């Protein structure tokens, strides 16, 4: 604590001892500004702290949240929190923080659950801020935490427990240790500081700079195809394809699937069980009512293996269409597919283990 604060504090304590609770007379500029009423404070006081302070009365579960999410959030963040365009990805990314391309989501990165509520309440939906009720906000918080494997599906998030939910990455934040990267001895070299000049990269070769010749605002800036930045992030480079998938990583990718599919038991939900799916003919799981196009694909001999599943997951309607001779198949599965090859590989590696 600063000397200044101590001084202010000491002054307050002294005046308290001298004259009891502070009165308006303790103000230097009394009469400028006024006391807000408790209702006035309450109407603006929307913040929630990690310890739960400020959390309003209310509750919500993942199931309730999913319904709100699909109506109010999915158009930007994707039906399964996978992000669309450059809107943030909300789900998955577990174990990627050391990667070439870390995926910083609520589940993989955010240290506190309270922040999910606080941010949704104040800023979401984008362009219609502060329109959600407290219950809706709790429900969305629960849905996003459930989809990120932080809480169980039937766990109701409330004002009493939001300050107690532990996030997986919480321990991995530490206080700023700067200044860093300083020269040895602390002094700047003036002469013969290095022997050769080696050029590592040139911005003109990359050619992603907007035109600045005319008076127009940034016209003609061509985005590299691999860009998916939401902040001023460094350009993401293409990573050479890794041959085998990572089942651990695939487990969090499966979060995108598990709202509709069970994999570790022969139980149908909104979608058919994926238990024992490898080697099975499409649309053949007992007790599930498949769409006509799916049945046709099965009749045409589609069998699920690594290759067919990878193609299907990457582009469900397109791939199934190619099997039955249509441009796009018509199925009830609302999922748009997983674009990242790496995620598909990881997912299949996980499914192989989990579907046994």
């Amino acid at each position, binding site marked *: *604590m600063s000397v*200044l*604060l101590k001084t202010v504090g000491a002054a*307050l304590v002294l005046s308290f001892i001298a004259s009891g609770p502070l009165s*308006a007379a*303790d*103000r*230097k500029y009394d009469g*400028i500004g*006024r006391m807000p009423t408790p209702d006035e*404070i309450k109407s*603006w*006081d*929307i*913040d929630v*702290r*990690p310890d739960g*302070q400020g959390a309003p009365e209310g509750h919500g579960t993942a199931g309730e949240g999913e319904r709100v999410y699909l109506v109010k959030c999915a158009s930007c963040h994707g039906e399964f929190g996978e992000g669309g365009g*450059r809107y943030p990805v909300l789900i998955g990314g577990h174990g990627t923080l*050391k990667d070439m391309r*870390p995926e*910083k989501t609520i589940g993989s990165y*955010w*240290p506190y659950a*309270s*922040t999910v509520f*606080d941010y949704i309440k*104040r*800023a979401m939906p*984008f*362009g219609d801020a*502060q329109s959600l009720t407290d219950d809706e906000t709790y429900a969305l918080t629960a849905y996003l935490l459930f989809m990120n494997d932080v809480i169980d599906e039937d766990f109701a998030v409330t004002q009493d427990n939001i300050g107690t939910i532990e996030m997986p990455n919480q321990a991995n*934040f530490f206080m*700023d240790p*700067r*200044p*860093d*990267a300083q020269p040895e001895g602390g002094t700047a070299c003036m*002469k*013969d500081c*290095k022997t050769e000049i*080696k*050029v*590592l*990269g*040139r*911005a*003109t070769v*990359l050619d*992603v*700079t*907007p035109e*600045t*010749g005319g*008076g127009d*605002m940034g016209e003609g*800036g061509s985005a590299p195809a691999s860009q998916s930045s939401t*902040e*001023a992030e*460094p350009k993401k480079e293409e990573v050479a394809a890794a041959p085998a998938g990572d089942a651990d990583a695939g487990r969090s990718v499966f979060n995108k699937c598990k709202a509709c599919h069970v994999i570790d038991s022969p139980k149908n939900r909104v979608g058919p069980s994926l238990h024992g799916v490898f080697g099975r003919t499409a649309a053949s799981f007992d007790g599930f009512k498949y769409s006509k196009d799916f049945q046709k694909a099965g009749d045409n001999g589609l069998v699920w293996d690594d290759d067919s599943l990878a193609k299907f997951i990457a582009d469900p309607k397109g791939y199934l269409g190619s099997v039955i001779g249509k441009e796009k198949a018509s199925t009830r599965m609302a999922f748009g597919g997983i674009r990242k090859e790496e995620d598909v590989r990881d997912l299949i590696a996980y499914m192989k283990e989990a579907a046994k």
Partner: protein
Amino acid sequence: MGEKKTIEIKDSGAAMPRRRFLQAGLAGSALAATGALGAAKGATAAGLDIPDWSRQLGASVDDAPYGKPTHHESSVIRRSVEWLTATRESSVNFTPLYALEGIVTPNGICFERHHGGAADVDPAEHKLMIHGMVDRPLLFTMEDLLRLPRISRFYFLECAANGGMEWRNAQLNGVQFTHGMIHCVQYTGVSLKLLLEEAGVSTKAKWLMVEGGDSAGMNRSVPIEKALDDCMVAFAMNGEKLRAEQGYPLRLVVPGFEGNMWVKWLRRIEVGDESWQAREETSKYTDLMPDGRARRFTWEMDCKSVITSPCPENPLTQKGPNVISGLAWSGRGSVKRVDVSLDGGKNWKEARIEGPVMPKCLTRFYLDGWEWDGSEVYMQSRAIDDTGYVQPQMTALQKVRGINSIYHNNAIQTWLVNKTGEVENVRLA
């Protein structure tokens, strides 16, 4: 950037500077359009032109009740990088540093960063609330705030993500894009310490939560030590009221700290004993290290500098004497020294600092007496502040922080002056 191909290098002093040269074509056609008048009153054979503006009346007063820069400078504007963000409302643009002189940024070209668009706030309706761990919560109108004692201070404001696109390699070819998330203006307002004293801060208070009245409700935690040190609640910049995009009618000024904390459209300050861990200080504005852990509360903007002339937007057109100039700053204090290297960092010369030098403010420097011989030059600048901090090379930063930390890139910038006089953003080992 296509313009650069038209540059001709001249050895004599007769050639026009590049930008004038480019505009000569325009001026010529305007003259031609005036027809016989222009031709009849042309210059004598051996003398200089007597142009129209020397003979005819210019614009009247009040032609522009609020003036703008001359149309000859219409290319000096903020620019954005379209592929960077999802929407135009939650986005950023860049200050045209290449066109600035001295240390003050004109209000109309201070870079913008909004998270929910620039709010259009009615000053008659706007209020600032201070509550939480205080003896008495207070609600101020703008009228109230204008009755309190004022201070005016010059400060730079830099986004923590300035240079964020350059972590992996040289990517954007222009100082506007590599360094343009910064501005420096004279802010006028009320000391935050004064407002907190009016409310009577509890001795147990350790943090403030500051919040904007925009549709992003931008909120950040500010440590009480900083709040009672040099923060201010500003309503004016460079002698006039804040621009809407800079938070009109009220913004927080947090000198030397990352721009994201300078909450615009400031409506609420809550005093507490813990930090809030807002989205903008957890999900964003934390710095991911190579080991997968992340630094948090990385507030100070470290000492940094860049050469703004020459730069990709300001190529050289002539051999011989040329101006080398740039800007330096530090969020931890004042700029003490700036060095310039003309051989890619092998050897350095101390530059001349052109005052005024103020803490947490842009500082202008020049390297006098330089003559370009037409050869390739790898140009760098390196600033040192009064804490002794030395601006590092990118290799030194990457060694500690890797390539995924996004924020707080204060590395030394290299410009390669080609034999043609064109200038490129390059990365050296």
